[in-house]
């Protein structure tokens, strides 16, 4: 039943068939989406009407390709900016949190740790609503007492970043903690013994050791932020992110521009994914 145990032909063949079906199930929608980005048709469906790159480069009037579609381009740009901000912020705080939970001892550490992992089990929608309600009440309170109107407390770019940051940091913390836990602390002691202070130790020894996980964490944070929908939905202002834009288009009937966007996203995420996985793989061996 495993590699070393003798097993029947039917068992092996059955298992292989199962995996093949599973892979088809996994890839069919993605591959179809990508192929239809090149169909010379007004709708993302069959029949095949010939190959075209218009859904990428078309200048109108019939087909406006992705690279001339200012609405979607703006969405991509916004998502990109959000994702960069979130990944920077959550990687920084996530690293600090990893140190806090792995290397420090303090009262109520257990409770704080529980809070730290709580976002894993809070639905994204609820996180979005809570933050929306809280910032709204806060801005009303500040306006009433101080007479100041704080724009960033209403749905806007900043709020989207904060909302995504609030749960992505948990993921980053867990990735970095996992590596920090394996760190041999005698290395730190040795460095301290050779005259390095706490920050020099962390800077020269521990952070160097953590680098792969920090990079991995940042990459994952970027991807999660880029594709986030549930939390973002409640926090976007006038500048909507790509998933929000796409959602509206998909809901209200779509053109193959969405396939073109999908094509580019699938290819780039695959490249990022494979690169990150490879880093992870080579680290292990």
């Amino acid at each position, binding site marked *: *039943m*495993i590699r*070393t145990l003798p097993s029947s032909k039917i068992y092996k063949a059955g*298992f292989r068939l*199962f995996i093949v079906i599973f*892979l088809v199930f*996994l*890839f*069919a*929608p*993605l591959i*179809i989406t990508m192929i*239809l980005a090149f169909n010379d048709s007004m709708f993302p*469906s069959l029949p095949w009407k010939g190959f075209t790159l218009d859904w990428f480069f078309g200048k109108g009037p019939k087909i406006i390709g992705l690279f001339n579609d200012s609405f979607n381009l703006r969405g991509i740009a916004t998502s990109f900016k959000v994702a960069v901000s979130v990944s920077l912020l959550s990687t*920084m*705080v996530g690293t*600090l*949190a990893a*140190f*806090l939970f792995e290397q*420090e001892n*303090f009262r109520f550490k*257990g409770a*704080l740790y*529980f*809070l730290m992992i709580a976002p894993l*089990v809070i*639905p994204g*929608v*609820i996180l979005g609503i*809570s*933050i*929306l*309600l*809280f910032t709204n*009440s806060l801005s009303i309170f500040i306006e009433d007492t101080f007479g100041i109107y704080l724009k960033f407390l209403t749905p806007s770019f900043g709020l989207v970043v*904060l909302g995504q*940051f609030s749960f992505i940091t948990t993921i980053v913390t*867990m990735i970095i903690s*996992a590596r920090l836990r394996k760190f041999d602390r005698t290395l730190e002691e040795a460095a*301290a013994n050779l005259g390095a202070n*706490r*920050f020099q130790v962390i800077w020269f020894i521990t952070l160097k050791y953590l680098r792969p996980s920090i990079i991995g964490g940042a990459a994952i944070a970027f991807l999660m932020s*880029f*594709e986030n*929908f*549930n939390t973002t*939905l*409640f926090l976007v202002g006038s500048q909507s992110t790509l*998933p929000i834009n796409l*959602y509206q288009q*998909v809901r209200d009937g779509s053109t193959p521009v*969405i396939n073109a*966007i*999908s094509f580019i*996203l699938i290819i780039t*995420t*695959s490249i990022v*994914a*494979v690169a990150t996985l490879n880093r992870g793989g080579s680290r292990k061996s």
Partner: protein
Amino acid sequence: MKSDRQPIRWSFFIFFIPVFLWLFLLIVLPHLELLRMSFLGSRTSTFTLNNYKAFFTEPIYWLTFVRTAMYSILVTFIVLVISLPVAFYITKISSFKLQGLLMVLILVPFWVSELIRVYGWMILLRESGVLNSFLVGIGIFKEPVEMLYNDVTMVMGLVYTSMLFMVVPIIGVMGNLDDSLIEAAHDLGAKKIVIWKEIIIPYCMPGIMSGSIIVFMLVLGSYLTPKLMGGKNALWFTEQIYNQIIVYFNWNQGSAFGFLLLLLSSLIIWIALKLTRQEFSKVVK
């Protein structure tokens, strides 16, 4: 030892303060606000239980709630049943060369945005979709059938979008399962079913639990998939919340719903952990 005696531990506060701000400002306070708002009347802004009363007296609300919970459990179970053999094939049956490739193949699609994956299924399954064109083309169907917008498709979509979060943790623990345990059980006369029941599943329980919790949470809180693939008049509970907040602008009612969803998810996770005698803090690692 030495660091414990330092009078002021600056490093501790540098770790602690940002983490504390993150958790306090973006997790604790917003959820307290959610709770507070749920007890306020939408017009009167005074304490009231009406928001919760509305939930229990309007069947549409609590029916949606129960339906969402039931389907989430069902989806989690289906995902588990598919993930176990997939993980088993990758870790224990496939040749070592194939193993790495399969891992990458299985992981990559899940890095692609949920929206795009759902979109892929939509253009595959809808009435004018690829599958219909194909089946009508080869003559199996006389005319196109709408395969989208029903519960079966929605469940499949939810299984599809949350699969990874089960497969990865299970592969994690199953990879650590020493082959010799399976061999020993076999040597002592155990059949395949017994080996699964007595050895593999108990051993993988931590992975199964963490996978199940995450999948359950994601499904329960998902918005896109039920909205885009599910039946038009059968709502998911997150859609109810969305409607209250965005459409009716009744934030207090929405808060109450949000809080109930949070309560439900915590409760089900708690029961699941109790039933399988696992600990939350261990499971999420």
